[in-house]
């Protein structure tokens, strides 16, 4: 099967800045793909390379097998949902959605009918005559989505699509986007700096760091087996264990990762430690423990709800769940 999008040794340099540096990626057709990373990691540039707003300095970008390096954005069958939505303020919602059809010369009646269908898809049937300025942030986001989907793109790109929404709306939109993607079967590629969003929505996640891809994998792989220390730190709040700590927990003699929720308190045996500060999180309590006799032996763990955190300074014993410790490449 051909990939929807394929990066072959792609680099994009801005002067001396290597925004994207030798990226190889393959995005499967029909997948929901997340590009995750902190700001400046190159994820947005990668998205712009797919849409055509940036051209690679070197390397090749293939969209459904076609090398699209020299094709301008308006001739790519790829559409984007912009971070600021970029709705046209002088057009009503219906004309905004129909824009892609209008520039292709579709007559007014059919393009309006099609725009209304798309608006129904994003549950905004009644809003066709309003101006974008009269809509809430969540509604504008849906209009942007409908507008990008009206051309039936082969790949839909979403640049931090939920960044401007409040928490509740964001969660609702996550489910909705996911459902929409399943229904349409279009390949979605979205950029985000929110690891929760990437893990909960995507089938595949690429973690970016300094213009390079640090790891690609399913959300579970990324979360449970971070390949590098950067991934472990960035995705969630994993414990990064130096080799000697890893050994104490019965893990490999290498820098390893250990998820806080995979560490538990035990009454006998285990690794001796002293309880530090605790922070109540609602769904549990995060406790920092200092391993005996180690300067950098700090481990954080999540106590399940109902378990009271030991007072700071109390002697405790810890245990890592079987198979929870994973060696990582590189380190220190």
């Amino acid at each position, binding site marked *: 099967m051909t990939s929807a999008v394929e990066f072959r040794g792609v680099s994009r340099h801005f002067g001396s800045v290597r925004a994207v540096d030798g990226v190889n990626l393959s995005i499967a057709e029909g997948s929901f793909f997340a590009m995750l990373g902190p700001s400046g990691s190159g994820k947005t540039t990668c998205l712009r390379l797919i849409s055509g707003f940036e051209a690679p300095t070197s390397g090749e970008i293939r969209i459904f097998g076609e090398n699209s390096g020299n094709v301008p954005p308006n001739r790519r069958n790829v559409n984007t949902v*912009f971070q600021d939505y970029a709705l*046209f303020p002088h057009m009503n919602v219906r004309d905004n959605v129909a824009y892609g059809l209008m520039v292709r010369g579709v007559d007014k009646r059919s393009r309006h009918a099609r725009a209304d269908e798309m608006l129904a898809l994003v549950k905004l049937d009644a809003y066709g005559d309003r101006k974008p300025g009269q809509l809430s942030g969540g509604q504008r986001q849906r209009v942007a989505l409908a507008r990008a989907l009206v051309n039936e793109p082969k790949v839909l790109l979403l640049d931090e699509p939920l960044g401007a929404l409040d928490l509740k709306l964001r969660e609702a939109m996550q489910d909705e986007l996911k459902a929409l993607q399943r229904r349409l079967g279009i390949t979605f590629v979205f950029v985000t700096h929110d690891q929760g969003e990437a893990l909960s929505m995507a089938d595949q996640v690429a973690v970016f760091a300094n213009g390079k891809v640090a790891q690609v994998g399913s959300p579970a792989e990324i979360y449970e087996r971070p390949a590098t220390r950067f991934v472990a730190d960035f995705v969630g709040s994993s414990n990064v264990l130096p080799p000697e700590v890893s050994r104490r927990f019965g893990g490999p003699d290498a820098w390893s990762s250990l998820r806080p929720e995979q560490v538990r308190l035990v009454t006998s045996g285990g690794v001796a430690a002293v309880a530090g500060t605790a922070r109540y999180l609602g769904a549990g309590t995060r406790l920092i423990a200092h391993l005996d006799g180690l300067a950098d032996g700090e481990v954080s763990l999540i106590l399940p709800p109902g378990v009271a955190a030991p007072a700071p300074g109390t002697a405790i014993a810890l245990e890592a769940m079987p198979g929870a410790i994973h060696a990582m490449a590189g380190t220190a």
Partner: protein
Amino acid sequence: MTDLATHPPRGLGDRLTDIFWRRPNLLLLLLLAPPLLWLGVVYLGSLFALLLQSFYSIDEFSGLVVHEFTLKTYLELLRPSNFDVILRTVAMAAAVTVGCVIIAFPIAYYAARYARGKWKAAFYLGAMLPLWSSYLVKVYAWKLILAKEGIITWAAEGIGASAILNAILAIPVIGGNSLSTSYIGTWIVFVYVWIPYMILPMQASLERVPVSMLEASSDLGASAGQTLRSVILPLALPGVIAGSIFTFSLTLGDYIIPQIVGTSRLFIGQAVYTLQGTAGNIPLAAAFAVVPIVVMLVYLAVAKRLGAFDAL
């Protein structure tokens, strides 16, 4: 230190602050009163006096103003010789506005989208510079440039383009003996003198169009031309209208440029000048002066109806 949570006013400053704090509108009133008085009494007052004069008429035998309300003076505007002046002026104002829009757009677009740092400063300087020198100096300079013995004729001869220049001057109505005595010359000078008033508002409105909007247009399949027509121009329209209010009304009222450069036919400003001076026909001069005001009101009403201010 006292035990009080507040302290009594110290001096006049505190007392005034107290008053303003209790009555915020009072401060606003004090700030606005002088300009409002100026605008109300001096400006609107004289405008009203002008309007009043235009409804009077002049006695043909005695040459005295008859202080009785009549529309006779306005009817006189419709006399062919007077109506020609109006048509000529409005046509020139429209042509100047169109010329300014066409020339200003690329400059404003460049400044809004590409110019950064010192290039931006150079743009502002370049756009404003012509406003710094005396208006009369600029107009006379142009008269020399456009004259038959001027640099344009000389340069045209030098590069063997005299035929082109002569062909342009041979165009009926707008051509003439030389550029400095033709409508083309008048138009060139008007465009030159008023163009800063078009560039600046246009640049301001283009600057407010986010790049992502142009990208969205392209992303959705629009060619560069389609993006220009469907997104950039509509969004720049309020700036274009603002600029055209300047270029249009300034041209409608000017009486110096057409007097120095161009044919000797009258424009509204010159008609007003002659009528209220040598001819002593104040009512007709007033009626002429009302014309640009009416034209501008009609122009703005049409612009509003066409949706020019929708993107504001």
